[in-house]
């Protein structure tokens, strides 16, 4: 494998040298960092990273290659991958290809020899920012100008880009039992959410995020699941209005991440952009009802303003112990609860699996 020089330029003029280990060309996106030490395959294929270039804080990446089972969607969604050192060998019994091979196949630019800690500290201090990485244009001024000119995430509807294009039923061939029918509004769902629902006995109907409430209700679902997704929730107000209609029907509803934010918007609360987001597998979340802590997997740049939640309508059920931000809410009267973090893990800890069971209970299982 030959390596090409690459340059990372940020909108504030900061530059980092790099070398391409997969893909060539020029990419743009919001540069973010993820602190997970494992799970690069799941991170790459998580649709929530649409429009983002992911820096992995842990510097040694690619060690265990890529396998067929740990895909979180049909393709990688991150615009690019920034790592310290990409392994040149693969060591794992399940691996069937290397990380560079996988990125090449999908035309994703991967760069290494980057001081990822320097990148992380910069983003931590200055916030997530627009970025361009190129193997073609190595001129600093030109690249910084491109970064400045690039589209940001705010107000953009990225969910529609990753949502299914037509309704579908999740892997009917693998359906072992069917206890309930669940409608999922796909804003960029991770497969593991669907896998878990199916394992628990749900027939999962996946709808594009521009589907109307009526169309969804037409299948007579027992419950509604609102998935994760990329970008700014305020960019998909069309989905929010359908969600509002759906929850008012009293349908048991469970939302994750973007789904949490859409629900909050539907309930009249506000969302805001975090300085650099929460991305990693070690975020402590306090379950306020139980008084115990769950170590959670997170990936979000936007957040629900928990003080904007009308206490008459809904209550905060979970908070992040690091910064006290909203991690979960429950409707006062309707069978509706959502969380900001990722109980389906993949990657990350499994501490919060109980939420899927709670959802089943809310559907009477």
């Amino acid at each position, binding site marked *: 494998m030959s390596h090409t020089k690459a340059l990372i330029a940020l909108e504030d003029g900061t530059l980092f040298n790099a070398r391409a280990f997969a893909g060539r060309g020029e990419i743009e996106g919001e540069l973010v960092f993820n602190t997970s030490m494992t799970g690069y395959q*799941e991170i790459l294929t998580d649709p929530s990273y649409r429009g983002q270039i992911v820096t992995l804080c842990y510097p040694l990446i690619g060690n265990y290659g890529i396998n067929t089972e740990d895909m979180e969607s049909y393709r990688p969604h991150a615009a690019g991958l920034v790592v310290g050192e990409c392994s040149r060998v693969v060591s794992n019994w399940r691996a069937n290809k290397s990380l560079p091979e996988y990125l090449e196949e999908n035309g994703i630019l991967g760069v290494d020899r980057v001081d990822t800690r*320097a990148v992380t500290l910069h983003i931590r201090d200055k916030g997530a920012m627009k970025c361009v990485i190129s193997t073609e244009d190595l001129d600093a001024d030109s690249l910084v100008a491109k970064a400045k000119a690039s589209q940001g995430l705010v107000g953009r509807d990225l969910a529609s880009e990753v949502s299914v294009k037509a309704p579908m039923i999740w892997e009917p061939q693998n359906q072992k039992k069917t206890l309930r029918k669940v409608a999922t509004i796909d804003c960029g769902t991770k497969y593991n959410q669907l896998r878990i629902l199916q394992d628990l006995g749900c027939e999962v109907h996946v709808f594009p995020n521009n589907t109307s409430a009526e169309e969804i209700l037409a299948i007579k679902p027992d419950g509604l699941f609102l998935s994760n997704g990329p970008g700014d929730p305020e960019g998909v107000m069309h989905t929010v209005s359908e969600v509002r209609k759906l929850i008012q029907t009293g349908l048991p509803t469970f939302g994750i991440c973007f789904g949490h934010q859409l629900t909050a918007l539907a309930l009249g609360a506000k969302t805001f952009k975090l300085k650099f987001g929460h991305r990693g597998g070690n975020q402590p979340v306090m379950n306020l009802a139980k008084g*115990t802590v769950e170590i959670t997997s997170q990936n979000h740049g936007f957040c629900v303003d928990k003080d904007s939640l009308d206490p008459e309508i809904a209550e905060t059920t979970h908070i992040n*112990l*690091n910064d006290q931000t909203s991690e979960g809410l429950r409707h006062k009267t309707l069978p509706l609860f959502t969380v900001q973090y990722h109980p389906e893990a993949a990657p990350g800890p499994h501490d919060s699996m109980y939420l899927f069971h709670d959802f089943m209970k809310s559907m009477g299982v």
Partner: protein
Amino acid sequence: MPKRTDIKKIMLIGSGPIVIGQACEFDYSGTQACKALREEGYEIVLINSNPATIMTDPEIADRTYIEPITPEAVEKIIAKERPDALLPTLGGQTALNTALTVANMGILEKYGVEMIGANAEVIHRAEDRDAFKEAMKEANVETLISIQVHTLAEAMAAADKIGYPVIVRPSFTLGGTGGGTADNPEELREVATAGLKASLNTTVLIEESVYGWKEYEMEVMRDHKDNVVIICAIENLDHMGIHTGDSITVAPAQTLTDREYQAMRDASIRVMRTIGVETGGSNVQFAVDPKTGRITVIEMNPRVSRSSALASKATGFPIAKIAAKLAVGYTLDELPNDITRETPACFEPTLDYCVVKIPRFAFEKFTSTPARLGVSMKSVGETMAIGRNMKEAFQKALRGLERGIDGFDLKCEEIVADRPLEGLFATTSPDRIFRIKTEMKNGMTDEELYKRTHIDPWFLDMMRQICELEKRIQDAPELDADLMKEAKDDGFSDAQIAALRGKTHTEIRELRKSFGIIPNYRLVDTCAGEFEAYTPYFYSSYGETDESRPSTKPKIMILGSGPNRIGQGIEFDYCCVHTVMALRDMGYETIMVNSNPETVSTDYDTSDKLYFEPLTFEDVMNIYEKEKPEGVVVQMGGQTPLNLSVPLAAAGVPVLGTPSDSIDQAEDRERCRVLLDQLGLKQPQSATAKTVEQAVEVAKKIGLPIMIRPSYVLGGRAMMIAWEEADIIPYVKEAFKAGPGMPVLLDRFLDNAIEADVDVLCDSEDVYVGGVMEHVEAAGIHSGDSACCTPPYSLSPIIVDRIKDSCGKIALALKVKGLLNVQIAVHKGEIYIIEINPRASRTVPYLSKSTGIPLAKLAAQVSVGRTLRELDLPTLGTPNYHWYAVKEAVFPFNRFAGVDPILSPEMKSTGEVMGMDYVFEAAFWKAQIAAGQALPTEGTVFLSANDESKDWMTDLGKTLHDIGFSIIATEGTAQVLEEKGVPAERLFKLAEGQSPNIQDYMADGKVQLIINTPSSAISRKDEVKIRSEAILRGIPIITTKWGALPTIAAIDYINKRGWVVTALQEYFLAAPSGNKFR
């Protein structure tokens, strides 16, 4: 939930002496725990027999008992102190086992003491194999197929059922003592017998072998609200079958997908909950089949461990401190993360660097046992390094190991130049990685290497990348900036590059600096940079940004002692920590540099700044140039930093304390001889030789007996006494082998001399004598291995005064500014100077602890300019007190089957204990018990004397008979005993091949004490067999007159008077206030 208010007084059990498997990591955890609990207002009662620990400093606990860690002592302390709770999870296996015994004896119930952290039931479930397997079934965690047995016959049957190869794992032991792998019934017979013996409850597990699987460890914490977090995952580079303490380990795990990692995390949490550890830290070990990913749990330790100390240093998460707080009722979310301050301790640390630990061994001291690794731990220390990639961390750790290598360099290959990578060498040698390098360069494929070594391909490729870069550096027409940067990114040291380019390391250093390539320092922050970190804990890398924030305050840099080894252990870390404390008190900013993860000095709380770096010239200079401290302390960390004194001073670094010329004067034999002559002090006649012939010639001049040793080696390596002319040539050859290219030193050996150690503090104008320590063993036994007593118990006051006077002269002549250690021999009323060490010595903590005068702290103040007068220390004064403190050495012989456990000029002990009492005999007895010599009060003694010791042995036999012991002996000894009217049962000699012999008696538990003097310098095989078997069976054995006489006197005394426990604080309170010194 806030802390408990129903308990006020908590008792902690320490881990006792440093032994293989239990080292200073428990001082680190115990000290953290004591501080954490006192901070919460609890009263702390501590028992620990190891004086060289920070935790036994009288300021750390409210009541400090330096007493043997036995159930009996614990009961006495409980009865006296009446604590509300006992915390057994911070003092290693020793504390856990002792607490369990005390609980089973009903003592806790009797005195109403609650066990916190882990109760007896939990300990049982984690430690007892059947109970553990049952629990694992309940937790739905797979375990290995295994059968628990109590006899050899059961063991053989179990192995037949499981199928060979099997692993033998004794329960209730330290570091896997007595365990091993057996490929066939013959091997099993041997391994299982040893295992049954090593187990406290005669129980071993015969287990399916997972030899060659991948091994992982998880460090887990839980609070009483059932919050559970994983602090760190550690992957072993060495495969299953090599004890994790002996493995090269890496954090975080490198070759697990998230799915596998989370499965292991889930399993760890289930294990924690099912075993029922209510609060605190535990360690869970897993084996993973590299072919299928099958995960099985191997064991769990319901306590903090060596690995948790490593995990704390690797992540910045203070496991022991948090464990202590959880034990008294806090929950994880209530405790702050010290490093980030704003976020809670309830999270999982995430790393953005790679950590490598490499163990250090001492096989060269136990040559009659092969240098093989297995399930029983053998390493005596370890070093850790942090880097931005594994190559960097690995190479830093290798140079931090202080084995004379500068990384994964050319010299590594020389170490094993003649060892093919085959068989047991390929799978079990601690040096196999060096051979891998050669094979890689010779073209062996990773596939073949994996087949031979079971080392994961990912690690092999890491090594191969180093080899490839090495070649590029070697072959490059010019070493340009890009290549230099690449080399530094991958951890190549200046010296390593220099060797490849045929330059000196200073030339490379200059070239590198001319390119502007200097290291940056990064924070260990628990969170991969997500939050701002406040704790200044750094490692170097060649990254783009620097986080070191040098201040403008007056600051001093203290160099630590690197990995523990025999001859340089916890004592030096103690001195470094005390130096830091004293200098902090004086208002200096203190900067600690060390690479040993087990220590208190590498706790980020100890100094103002911690640099976790190897102690090499390059690494130290880099920090110096970044921080620009006012001075560097090299006197406290033993020989490691002292060796840097001259090069650092030459590079313009202000080295504090004794001038480096004086250090040279003390260490250079010729210059030292001239000095002593000028002072009118005697020393044994001596000479140096560069060839064998020359040695023989000078030996003739000096006369017999003669001590032969190599120069510039530590801990008396290959130091021998020739009693006969025939010994000279083989010994000289051995000495040349141990110190290749160095002259051999020959000294007249002073037979039957009394040896003494003296630690002196000098400000270059006045001298204070910290104490005179009289050795129990005669000269000829390494001072680190000899028991000793302060104040002297047999030397006359006149001699002691003359010793003090002589040491004072030396200190002044050398213009010592700080500490000086002098070793003295008193031979026929004359004082001889044996050795001068211009630095803190191994005895400083023991002496400080026994007198209450903190020598190292005082020395630190002197090194920055305070005078003894200012410190109120009288000239030639010594502390005045009315008790005896006996230090006894602790040996690792039980780890090295077949090794003759006799004492010699070569140091072999790993640790020490102290016995303190107002009566010498009681202090001596306590020291023996604390050192693990289970001295009997009644029963049978086996006496076996060589010709020279027949006289005193018969006298001793008479005493033993008079105080009620039965005596057994072989023919010769029995005969002389009977001549004196002492009845002795006769045993056959082993060589006679008949029963009963001493081995039968040992096996049947019919002998309680063995006194056996070696017949000649090279012991007869059957003697070795007796002694090493006694060690393995835990039967106390004494091999010298000097050890035997006080032992028997002590047994007699304790039989008649019994013994009491006394806290350090009680001794010091009772000390006369008017005349602190004499």
